[in-house]
């Protein structure tokens, strides 16, 4: 869905930079969004106030709140999928490779 939404806006995503996290990756204001996400997920009380202000200046207060809530939701989703051993569909492998990641054997699936 990340790629589909980026393509919809005729942009060109650079998935490897999601791993890097500090550069623009083809999505508007990605640098500030990376910093916001990192600070809230890692509960970095030192970095969070500055990351939040920078995000608010770029995307606005409501959007910043929404992005924080999305990160929070994926704290739930990640734990759920890792804990139930949901396999990663083979269709995701090309994107993982673009990000420089290899799906671990215990999560690899034969299902597309």
């Amino acid at each position: 869905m990340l790629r589909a939404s980026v393509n919809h806006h005729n942009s060109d995503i650079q998935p490897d930079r999601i791993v890097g996290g500090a550069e623009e990756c083809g999505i508007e204001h990605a640098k500030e969004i990376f910093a916001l996400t990192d600070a809230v997920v890692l509960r970095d009380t030192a970095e969070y106030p500055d990351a939040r202000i920078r995000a608010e200046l770029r995307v606005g207060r409501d959007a910043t709140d929404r992005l924080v809530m999305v990160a929070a939701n994926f704290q739930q989703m990640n734990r759920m999928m890792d804990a139930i051993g949901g396999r990663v569909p083979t269709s995701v492998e090309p994107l993982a490779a673009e990000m420089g990641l290899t799906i671990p054997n215990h999560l690899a699936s034969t299902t597309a």
Partner: protein
Amino acid sequence: MTTSLIAEFEALCARQFDDIARASVWWTGEEKLAMAAVARAAMTGRAIPETSLGEAPLEATGRVAAEASSLRKADIERWEAEGMRVEAYVELVGVVGRLAALDTAAFGLGFDPTPLPTPVAGAPLEATVPGVDYVDGWVPTAGIAFPPTAYTAVPGATELWIDVSSVLYMPLEEMGDPTFVRDGATRAQIELVAARTSYLNDCFY
């Protein structure tokens, strides 16, 4: 944060913590609140509090809360051998996952974590779901194991995570829309946060 967002989040917390305080399918309210307390400590690096949880649920709670990517099928099998049903494990994962979401959102929105409520007395239903099976996952599910089926071995558990996901992320019916915008955040920005969070959690899904 706008008044409507505050109200929506506070209402979500009220519903979710009310559930956590009550007996459900495999755990009492007291046990679920103990899981919440242990998960909070594990996620923030604090000492694990004194708890009435048995060894298997205590270990499982800590692992799901703080190092979910290290879990393997053998862990679940070991906990089953120690007496924790796999359905009870599924419900435990739901409690810890929802707690993680609510506490993270509270931090990011500038709220204190919701105080854990007083447990409501009651016994678990101990109800099973017919027809669930192991389909490309470590726990029984209704169909292949992926988010919409993850908790289907436990009656009511799916609705609880959908409640959290709908408020914090997006309603299920919007999932296929690449043009979805919420509170000014574009779908691409939303999915960027999802991808980055998953990377930080070492989650490949």
